[in-house]
């Protein structure tokens, strides 16, 4: 039975349990709501939760573990040469799965009758053609082992599906029965319901933790795989990046890291002065009218998707820099360059610097400004010598956050910086970054057992660690700074 149907049945049962429990609660109190601990609807909700929640959780767990279980069982039936290495087992299992899926699709659409199915068991060579006619394409011809495994796969899957259906509906009904039995006027239904809701709330807030854990795990395992095939010393200290298909790649992170830092540096060189001066002007000089239109307009820059900046770099800024700066100065003829990506990225992070600095400058107490102005300092002297030093830690935090933003930025560098890994100083040359290489190693046809693909996970982990370190440090500084004036 399809999962959706089971879920609907469970929910329908829960709805019925709600109505029954509510009615029986009212009946047990002879219709006098005041004699019950909780409002009647809470008895209903209690029944609803007890019916639906355990059943749906069971179904979810089953759906997660069933494929793993089936995979294990089928893999043990495959011939020994297919399961010799992890790669060959994965390939064999992929074949089995696609044959099984193909058969399932063909049979459910009626293109192949179950009787025909029997015939294929003896002669699998015609299966591919027959499935092809039925609109299911297979990668290669089907061997009898694969077909047998696929048949076992289907049989096991359907048995387990049936078991799951029975179990899930059984749990739902049992839950409904227990809930209905509990309905008495002195049962604290509201508290029971609220406990469950609280559990759900806690679960929702723990999703952030799960996300972090899965980010770390998804990258750590594949990174370990990578380091098993490629020495970590060469990765972290190698100065050449030249992935080659089928071995002998040189996968040193240094040129990528250099490109990343160089571009981020230029971006900060653009964004920090502009963002800081904009923040100073807006918070210290601008009239309310100017502030009310300039501030949102600058923040629009932060709301524009990065792909837009990427295209801007590619079609406007890149050619402009090439034709008017790089070529006349004899510095290169590349449209994509460190400068292109850095400038555009700098524009993108202006609002990150300016909004946070604006907040921070505003939180410097007015009494300090008064003290300085009262001594006859000009506004700019007050800002430079009193406000900015007082706000410095917070501004450093803002700049670090912007830096982490720049280091992790992808689309601008994919479209603006180029793909050539290079260790150089010429800002008008194309260079590449960690994020660009993650994209290029993980898009298109990928083989998750070759170091050329797995390196992307090691790059991702490095990127994650760098940005996380910057963020934690920056948030710590900003938080410390805020405490100072609270």
């Amino acid at each position: 039975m399809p999962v959706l149907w089971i879920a609907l049945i469970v929910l329908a049962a829960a709805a019925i349990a709600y109505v029954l429990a509510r009615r029986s609660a009212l009946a047990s109190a002879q219709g006098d709501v005041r004699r019950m601990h909780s409002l009647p609807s809470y008895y209903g909700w209690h029944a609803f939760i007890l019916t639906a929640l355990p059943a749906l959780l069971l179904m979810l767990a089953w759906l997660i573990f069933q494929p793993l279980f089936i995979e294990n069982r089928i893999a043990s039936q495959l011939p020994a040469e297919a399961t010799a290495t992890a790669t060959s087992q994965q390939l064999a299992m992929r074949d089995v799965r696609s044959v099984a899926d193909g058969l399932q699709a063909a049979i459910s659409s009626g293109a192949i009758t179950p009787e025909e199915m029997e015939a294929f068991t003896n002669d699998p060579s015609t299966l591919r053609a027959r499935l092809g006619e039925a609109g299911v394409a297979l990668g290669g011809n089907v061997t009898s082992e694969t077909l047998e495994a696929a048949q076992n796969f289907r049989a096991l899957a359907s048995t387990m599906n049936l078991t799951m259906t029975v179990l899930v509906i059984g749990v739902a009904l049992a839950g409904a029965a227990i809930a209905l039995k509990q309905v008495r006027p002195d049962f604290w239904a509201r508290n029971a319901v609220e406990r469950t809701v609280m559990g759900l709330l806690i679960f929702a807030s723990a999703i952030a933790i799960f996300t972090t854990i899965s980010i770390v795990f998804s990258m750590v395992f594949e990174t370990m795989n990578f380091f098993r095939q490629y020495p970590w010393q060469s990765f972290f200290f190698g100065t050449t990046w030249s992935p080659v298909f089928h071995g002998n790649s040189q996968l040193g992170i240094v040129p990528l890291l250099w490109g990343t830092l160089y571009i981020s540096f230029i971006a900060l060189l653009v964004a920090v002065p502009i963002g800081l001066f904009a923040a100073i002007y807006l918070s210290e000089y601008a009239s309310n009218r100017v502030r009310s239109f300039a501030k949102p307009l600058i923040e629009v820059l932060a709301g524009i998707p990065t792909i837009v900046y990427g295209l801007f770099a590619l079609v406007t800024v890149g050619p402009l820099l090439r034709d008017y700066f790089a070529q006349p100065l004899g510095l290169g003829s590349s449209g994509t360059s460190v400068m292109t990506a850095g400038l555009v990225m700098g524009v993108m992070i202006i609002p990150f610097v300016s909004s946070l600095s604006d907040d921070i400058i505003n939180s410097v107490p007015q009494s300090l400004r008064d003290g300085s102005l009262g001594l006859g300092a000009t506004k700019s002297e007050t800002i430079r010598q009193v406000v900015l030093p007082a706000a410095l830690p917070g501004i450093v935090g803002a700049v670090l956050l912007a830096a982490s933003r720049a280091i992790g930025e992808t689309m601008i560098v994919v479209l603006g910086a180029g793909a050539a890994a290079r260790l150089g100083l010429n800002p008008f040359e194309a260079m590449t970054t960690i994020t660009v290489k993650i994209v290029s190693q993980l898009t298109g046809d990928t083989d998750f057992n070759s170091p050329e693909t797995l390196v992307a996970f090691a790059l991702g982990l490095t990127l994650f660690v760098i940005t996380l370190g910057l963020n934690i440090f920056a948030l710590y500084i900003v938080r410390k700074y805020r405490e100072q004036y609270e």
Partner: protein
Amino acid sequence: MNDMRIAERDVSTSETKIAARGVQVHYGTTHALKDVDIDILNGNVTAFIGPSGCGKSTFLRCLNRMNDTIAAAKVTGSIKLDGEDIYDAKVDPVQLRAKVGMVFQKPNPFPKSIYDNVAYGPKIHGLTRSKAELDNVVETSLKKAALWNEVKDRLHSPGTGLSGGQQQRLCIARAVATSPEVLLMDEPCSALDPIATAQVEELIDELRGQFAVVIVTHSMQQAARVSQKTAFFHLGNLVEFGETGQIFTNPRDPRTESYISGRIG
């Protein structure tokens, strides 16, 4: 603090330092100060008293144009310092404030060292030519503020690390360091404990030998203790201005009397 002892009244016959005539202040649509006429004399402490919101601080801030920093405030009338109108278009408020220093309600030392706090004014106004001269100014200012002995060993530790009373005396030293001609003090003791208050009051009395001092206070006892002249403000009006002794012992206006006897406020 029921001590209503009146300070020695050796009102000097010295010349007028600041003369205010017909001063009005509007904050947007609020009429905060109405038609104030007052003369601040050299070598005197002038106290502004009155219930909160009466306009005394507003008037004080007019005297060195600190109201300029509030966009909505509009000041009319004339305020003359040594015969020059400080609201004249040619007057640079920066130059004015160097002559008319200010100490604020809450101690507001800059987040810098004690030394840098005091040296800030002389530095921005370019009052000294050498490091030695600056050291000298810092030392004399701290001595004038009766703080030197407490901080001379830690001049380079942060000013924010001092106690409240010390911080306020540091702010006074900071104001004194630019050698102003008038010193404005906006409730300088309201955030301090009684002992620190006594120290600051003593200091104020010493300072009046060098500048005209104007102090806003919500404490009548304090006004009585430190000032020679007292002005009573009420609802934006200057109700009465005169010798401190006369205001406290023989007020002419019934409103002054009610306030002093504790019926307004």
